[in-house]
């Protein structure tokens, strides 16, 4: 398959809660485990034979079912996902593993537990500072999760299973890294809108099949020359980002997104889990716990800034566009500090507020236009 076909296939994967790959997986007797956050060790699900499925609100026409349980001051991403769940549109889930990534999702977890009643329901208490002193607690939580899955589903997850899962997930990481490498080119062969579609799909379909598709995509992209008609290269960061159309509305203004450092974008993959003799589960946990920290984490802001600066440098970007879903508190704190830090660093920084699944072309267009002009682009 060539680029366009592959991207079309992946577009179908991300359009609605279900997709053909997921249905096939289930048709073959496979189980599916839902989760919201990058701090959930999805390798454990793979090792236990599940398809890890990252929850999102695509395909939700309105959030009315969620609105019946949550105030309109809860972020629309959460209200849409909860609405899907309450409408039984996520009935393919055999379990969910949630955590207190933010106050909004913490309450979504209550609704999942009390109203949605997915067969298996677990919760991880994930520390809020990626510090060695707190790692043991996280590791214990991951161990508990593994045994809960084992005893609920009557299975055993061996070290070999975990190693195989690490290998599979690393293969995905490695492909995403190669995809991102291509985006460093002066003429990137893929737009931000397209690349985000790819990384979202990786969260919703079997990794093996995803990896095969991406192999073809990478070959095709490698030979392509890409476009250089953009006015500026930008990095998109901030709240979770699983809406390629939003990136498209930025790119329509001539700001090419060369990296999406947000959940569902590159931030969800990170570096490879290193090979080694150590305990497999511990290696997985370590990778998750010490990943590029997100806004929910404290005592790590310098690392977050460093990572963004490096990304700007490596991708030869001119600016950062920070987007935040309205009412999102964790990113509100980071948005404030990042604005000033980037000002100090001399990196142009635009802060946008958005609603989940609301076409924002008009508002985004005006802001991005003005931003580019300000930058002299």
């Amino acid at each position, binding site marked *: 398959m060539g680029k366009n076909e592959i991207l079309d296939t992946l577009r179908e994967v991300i359009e609605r809660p279900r997709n053909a790959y997921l249905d096939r997986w289930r048709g073959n007797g496979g189980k599916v485990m839902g989760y919201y956050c990058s701090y959930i060790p999805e390798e454990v699900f793979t090792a236990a034979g599940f398809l890890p499925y990252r929850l999102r609100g695509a395909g939700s026409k309105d959030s009315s079912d969620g609105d*019946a*349980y*949550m*105030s309109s*001051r*809860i972020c629309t991403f*959460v209200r849409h996902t909860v609405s899907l769940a309450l409408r039984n549109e996520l009935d393919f889930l055999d379990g969910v593993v949630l955590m*207190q990534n*933010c*106050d*909004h999702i*913490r*309450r*979504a*977890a*209550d*609704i999942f*537990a*009390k*109203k949605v009643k997915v067969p298996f329901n677990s*919760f991880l*208490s994930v*520390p*809020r*500072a990626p510090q060695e*002193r*707190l790692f043991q*607690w996280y590791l214990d939580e991951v161990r508990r999760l593994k045994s809960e899955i084992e005893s609920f589903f009557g299975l055993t997850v061996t070290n070999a299973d975990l190693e195989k899962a690490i290998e599979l997930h690393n293969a995905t990481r490695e492909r995403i890294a190669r995809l991102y490498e291509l985006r460093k080119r002066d003429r990137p062969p893929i737009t931000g809108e397209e690349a985000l579609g790819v990384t979202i799909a990786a969260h919703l379909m079997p990794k093996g099949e995803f990896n095969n598709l991406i192999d073809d995509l990478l070959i095709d992209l490698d030979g392509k020359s890409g476009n250089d008609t953009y006015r500026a290269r930008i990095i998109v960061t901030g709240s979770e980002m699983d809406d390629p159309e939003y990136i498209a509305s930025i790119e329509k203004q001539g700001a090419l997104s060369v990296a999406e450092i947000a959940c569902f974008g590159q931030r969800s993959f990170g570096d490879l889990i290193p090979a080694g003799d150590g305990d497999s589960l511990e290696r997985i946990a370590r990778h998750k716990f010490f990943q590029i920290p997100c*806004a*929910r984490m*404290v*005592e790590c*802001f310098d690392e977050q800034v460093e990572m963004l600066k490096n990304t700007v440098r490596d991708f030869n970007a001119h600016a950062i566009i920070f987007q*935040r879903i*309205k*009412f*999102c*508190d*964790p990113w*509100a*704190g*980071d*948005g*404030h*500090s990042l*604005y*000033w*830090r980037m000002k100090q660093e001399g990196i142009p920084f635009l*802060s946008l*507020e958005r609603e989940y699944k609301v076409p924002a072309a008009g508002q985004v267009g005006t802001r991005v236009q003005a931003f580019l002009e300000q930058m002299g682009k």
Partner: protein
Amino acid sequence: MTILGKERKEDWEVVYEGATGLIDLYEEDPESKGMNSILIGFRNFIDDIFAAIDEGKPFVWHNCGCSPELIKGLDGVQTMPIEVLTVLQDLVGEVDFTVALIDEAESHGVAPEVCSIDKAAVGAVLKDLYPEPACMLYHNTPCDSQIAAIKSLTEMMKKPMRLMDVPYLSTDREVKYLAKQLQEGIPFLEEHTGLKFDWDKFREVREESNRTAEYLRDWNELRRHRPCPQVSKIVALNTALLVAFSGEPEGTKIAKGFRDEAKERIERGESAVEGGEEYRAIWYQDPVWWDLQFYDWMESELKLVIPMDLFGYYAPEALIDTSTPQSMLEGLARKNLKVLPMSRQFKGPIDYYIDDYLRMCADYEADFAIFAGHVACKHGLGGIGLFREASREAGIPLLYFEFDMFDPRVTSAEAIQEEITHFIEDIVAPVKETV
């Protein structure tokens, strides 16, 4: 007005003057013993802050999710809750000053949805109103808004900061986890303040907390009396007491003031509501800090009293075994997880939140409940559907509205008054008449 003989920043002088004026006004009034005790406490607290500045003592900042006894184990330290100025401004009716701090933070780029008290703390720092800390010790409760503020403040101050990770549940496992972190936090505090942690001092602090706890427990009990003996507006002040005064004789004095006033009024057969209470309601979520007179209005116009609210509720787990360092650390961890209002109810699963509500409604024989949805409390607003269902199942009529507890511009007093009045007329009164 000067403080300790020197001119200070206007925001501080205004609250000092306000507190002094109110203390003078109510000093001889036996009806105001509780209110007065906290006003005196806070005026002394301001004196302590400025004395510490003048003496060059190291300050340690903390947040409202942190009961500060560990810090007080350092002899010669001054603790500083980041919310203190705002609480004082509202307590003495200087809300315009709070609003100015909120605006300051927003114009610096803090998102409007961050809690107004956290925005005000950022505003206070921007206006250089807080003495520089030697270091900061924060707990990641009760909410994400606090996390946002903690990160902003750390970035702005560039001072060493340590987070105590308060986990989701509150069982013994969590108590041990937090106790270990508290212990590991001691060298951090010592290093940055240059002071030595003194276990005997810590024991004194913890024993004082126990004395305070005993008064608060009695006070909670006395407020169950029918009619409720003491005004509604005092209840919420319990949280301010705990955050600022835990472990200090001043805290015990205030708690005793609360207790004595309630006790004496019961002995005299007095009711909070002149002419007799007609309705009792549990006020859940957050108080109307920007207008404490609001509660007077409920009492006089609606004959409605709030015997207990979420900020006043003092959980029975408060007393601490002070026999060993480990028992004290675990006791403090337990207090942070299970006693401190907001952290107790807001950080974990919704059951923590709803169970306390139902217990309060039953214990205080409430006719109905008021869920005052402070707009920043996403953990509360995100649970409103389940909360409503639980209330309905328990047969408790529930009024819900959204407002901002430190910013009167979001929902006006008149709008809230109208909501409560109509709810009583349309829902509560008819039921009461049938009964």
